[in-house]
């Protein structure tokens, strides 16, 4: 075979494994989910009947679904806003040189490298109705009523806040690292030029530094949105969607309905609700990534 002919085959041969991987682990389940969502499949059922959009209709009529949909948005937006704020502040602190910086950086990365499940179980204890250390401290300082302390995972509002905060805790390191990288990518001259030009801290931050980091911040946010929208670990471990489905999000509800409730068809329909939104986010992500490359 000629060198040119070999080259023609080598390229496709090299990325074939990647294609196979994507087809097998993403493509097939996706098609399957789509087929399930328009059929009547249950765990253990053998036949398949096409039912059209019946599953979507029934899902849309369920108040639990609407609640999960709303929760998903609240969960994602709230945690991403917190992550963004926290990550920027942390990155700003960590970009300066101070003794022990490496150690602090390591500490901040810990929640990301530790498995979510383990971290979340830790939080489950911290927020437990009886053994909560937070309440123990608050009671010692007489800040809450000893006989009816707050039940962080048992009251709808508190439960939602807890779930959001724990998820933020988990997502923060990743965003911090990305934003820190963005910060170190700004040439030192530019903020200096801004100070000589007479800009004080906030003008420098909001008119020079943050706009310059915007492409990178966008990447962090879009990653965060996708991670959060599709994630159910924290919700599953901390509250199982409770109390009374008040912390249920779409992925967890899809799981409870489809797998635990053995209604595969309806579970698939719930999870497919995420697709259009994620497509938009993914498209935005590719676009910003491309833009960031150009500048």
């Amino acid at each position, binding site marked *: 075979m000629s060198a040119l002919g070999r080259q023609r085959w080598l390229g496709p041969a090299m990325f074939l494994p990647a294609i196979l991987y994507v087809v097998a682990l993403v493509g097939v389940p996706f098609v399957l989910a789509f087929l399930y969502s328009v059929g009547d499949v249950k765990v253990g059922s053998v036949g398949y009947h096409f039912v059209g959009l019946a599953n979507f209709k029934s899902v849309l009529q369920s108040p639990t679904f609407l609640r999960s949909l709303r929760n998903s948005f609240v969960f994602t937006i709230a945690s991403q806003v917190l992550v963004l704020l926290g990550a920027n502040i942390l990155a700003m602190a960590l970009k300066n040189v101070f003794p022990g910086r490496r150690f602090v950086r390591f500490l901040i990365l810990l929640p990301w490298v530790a498995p979510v499940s383990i971290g979340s179980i830790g939080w489950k204890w911290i927020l437990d109705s009886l053994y909560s250390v937070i309440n123990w401290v608050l009671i010692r300082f007489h800040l809450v009523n000893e006989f009816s302390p707050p039940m962080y995972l048992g009251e709808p509002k508190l439960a939602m806040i807890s779930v959001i905060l724990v998820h933020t805790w988990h997502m923060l390191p990743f965003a911090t690292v990305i934003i820190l990288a963005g910060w170190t990518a700004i*040439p030192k*001259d*530019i903020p*200096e*030029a*801004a*100070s*000589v*030009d*007479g*800009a*004080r801290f906030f*003008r420098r931050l909001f*008119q*020079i530094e943050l*706009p*310059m980091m*915007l492409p990178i911040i966008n990447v962090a946010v879009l990653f965060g949105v996708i991670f959060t929208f599709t994630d159910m670990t924290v919700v599953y471990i901390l509250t199982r969607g409770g109390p009374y489905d008040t912390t249920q999000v779409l992925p967890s509800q899809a799981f409870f309905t489809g797998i635990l409730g053995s209604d595969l068809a309806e579970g698939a329909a719930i999870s497919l609700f995420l697709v259009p939104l994620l497509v938009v986010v993914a498209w935005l992500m590719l676009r910003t990534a491309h833009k960031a490359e150009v*500048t």
Partner: protein
Amino acid sequence: MAIVQTRALTKVFKKGELGAVNSVDLESREGEFLVLLGPSGSGKTTLLRMIAGLEEPTSGEILIGGRVVNDMTPRERRIAMVFQSYALYPHLTVFGNIVFPLKAQGMEKGERQKKAEWAAGLLGIGHLMHRKPRELSGGERQRVALARAIVREPALFLLDEPLSNLDAKLRASARTELEQFQRRVATTTIYVTHDQVEAMAMGDRVVVMNKGLVRQIGTPAEVYDEPADTFVATFLGSPPMNLIDIGEATVGFRPEHFFPVSHLAGQAAVPADMREDARVGPYVPLRFLISHEEYLGAERILYGKLEGGRFDGKPAVSRMSSTHGAVFESGSVHAFAVRQGDLKFFHREQGTRTQPVPLS
């Protein structure tokens, strides 16, 4: 308009190390173009950054317009700085870049617009106002950086090697432009460079720095013709001054002052007392063994060794106009001479200038 003074200004980056800037005393004059010249690591940029307020002095004082500014932020010092990289704000247009300092001052919009147009017009970049920095050439970026510096009419201009990112041809024209520009706005300017041609061409006075110390301050002619020490003597001039150790002192002469006697022969003032050995007199004759020649178009550079007398075996360089037609073959020995007054004498250890010593 303001003058800048530094008093025993020192910057030490790491305790126990030699300072990047060591006890520098400077005083600029009103409207002057003052050039800080030195090799890399000489502390010239650190000195500039301390004046700008970007670096905190370890000790000493900085005065701008008679006021001590050590504790002032860059904003309060009312200075403008052009960075080596230009440091344009990449996400803003040229217009956005130029008005940024005015916005920071809180100037109102109509006024800002007028000022920006004035500055852009001054530098001939009015047609680029809506471009982003990445769409500009190196020369255009440099002008934007200058426009951004001039727009709020600062008391003091600080320029950190603003021409070093331009290609050679553009640099020459930008140099002239920058110089004329400075004359026109007549703002006191401190200009950092490692390029002696820039320093000589543009500076009213040149501050020659090395290892954090000021070696000499003077007009370009002063630092070139009367170097204070061997560092200044060899840093300025290309090729540098010939330095020859003669025991108790070091004697130096510039390559262009070291010329063949044949060159002299055509002129009226042929000294009568030209002799083989060096002695006190209007001319010092030297025998020059040529090793090779560089022909540079406008001039010729001869490399070789001195022969005979106290200078025997010492390397030397001669530089002459290429209109001088004599042929110098490698390996041949020629009669060369240096005018007595062109010899500079330096202390052998300290390298500082000393009184002339008799050569014979």
